[in-house]
């Protein structure tokens, strides 16, 4: 239950961090909040040769408005800071809603917003929320920057397109259109425990009350957060109804790929997705009708 030996770097600026990552290459690993990584290192499941600790770089922690009315969140912003930020709660109620489900208060006080996304745990709430909200990730390497949308970020369990010499620096949230509603719903054995399945949704209505846009994501029922293709096919252009939600839930059975493990069987998880999808869409559309 103790980590293997590793080398440790604590840069004090983003530039220095990128230099260090470039030098270390495949030997380096970014340490953000450490609430997943250090646990994995304690078990010796993770054995990075060197850690590049971002905790001494204050410039990476912030929540600031963007020119188009969205928000930019620095990668080292603690989950608890996002959870308690009034601007976040006002503009993106989904983030405030989901925060309570992320582990425990002590973990949220230390765990970071960007770190949780970059960790890409298939059972992690924030990667799935990043996908459902189509967040934009600003990834930095030495002397270079690129932007990736969340659905293109995660390529497998705990795997992203972020290269060893790169780091996630900023998460950009675009403003939500009017008449947009959202919902996160999960089932877990105990509060703060791993979700056996979770569903999240962001929906927008048009002036006639028909579905204009829908994003629906299934979590912990596949190797990555799964963005439903069928939801848009079935719902867009039509008036939202429970019958339609049920159709989406049935179609979801071909989109998800749950596994059996000690947290639940694959069949049970399928059933959860069937039930949670209807509840999630129902609440998201109700919220959209009320104006978000």
């Amino acid at each position, binding site marked *: 239950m103790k980590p293997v*030996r590793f*080398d440790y770097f*604590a840069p004090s600026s983003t530039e220095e961090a990128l230099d260090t990552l470039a030098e270390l290459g495949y030997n380096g690993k970014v340490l953000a909040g450490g609430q997943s990584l250090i646990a994995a290192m*304690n078990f010796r499941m993770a054995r990075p040769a060197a850690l590049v600790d971002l905790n001494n770089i204050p410039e990476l922690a912030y929540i600031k408005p963007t020119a188009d009315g969205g928000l930019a969140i620095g990668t080292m912003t603690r989950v608890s800071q996002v959870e308690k930020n009034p601007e976040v709660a006002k503009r993106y109620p989904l983030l405030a809603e989901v925060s309570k489900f992320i582990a425990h*208060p002590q*973990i949220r006080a*230390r765990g970071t917003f960007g770190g949780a996304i970059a960790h890409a745990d298939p059972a992690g709430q924030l990667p799935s929320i990043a996908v459902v909200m189509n967040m934009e990730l600003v990834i930095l390497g030495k002397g270079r920057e690129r932007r990736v949308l969340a659905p293109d970020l995660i390529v497998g369990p705990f795997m992203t397109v972020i290269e060893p010499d790169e780091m996630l620096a900023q998460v950009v949230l675009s403003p939500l259109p009017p008449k947009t509603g959202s919902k996160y719903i999960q089932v877990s054995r105990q509060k703060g425990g791993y979700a056996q399945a979770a569903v999240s949704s962001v929906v927008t209505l048009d002036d006639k009350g028909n579905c204009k846009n829908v994003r629906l994501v299934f979590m912990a029922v596949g190797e990555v957060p799964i963005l439903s293709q069928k939801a848009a096919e079935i719902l867009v252009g039509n008036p939202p109804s429970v019958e339609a939600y049920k159709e989406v839930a049935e179609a979801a059975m071909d989109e998800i790929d749950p596994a059996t493990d000690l947290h639940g069987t694959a069949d049970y998880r399928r059933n959860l997705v069937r039930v949670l999808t209807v509840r999630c869409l129902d609440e998201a559309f109700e919220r959209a009708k009320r104006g978000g």
Partner: protein
Amino acid sequence: MSKLFPVTVTVNGQKYSREVEARMLLSDFLRHELGLMGTHVGCEHGICGACTIIFDGEAVRSCLMFAVQANGHNIRTVESLGTPDNLHPLQESFTEKHALQCGFCTPGFLMTLTPFLEQNPRPTEEQVREAIDGNICRCTGYEKIIEATLDASKKMSSGK
């Protein structure tokens, strides 16, 4: 011999300087380097909450931090609360309301609840339940802990 890193940290108002391996967990540092055995180590992967300490004013897991990361920071452990003759109101309420049996989880609960009560002097029962959802107790069934916390909040906010 592996590389050592200097750490200077303020714990319970006292400054300590040591040299540590990067892989030394903060929980082990407090117990084995500083001799502060009040911080208990349970699961070492962030589940049980026994090792909770107050780091720069926030309750965090000391098993999910490296000692080297505490350099320049301020820590409070359970030793910062009362003494046997002069218990902190939270400790007093825990004793009076039978909020502990074996006591293994207690330091973690106290370190979770201390900043919580500082930030929420008169919490509701629901808020207390949320505050302790990251601490496991296998003896009490939690009800007594919630009762004790609400009792302490009354004592503390009435200035007793």
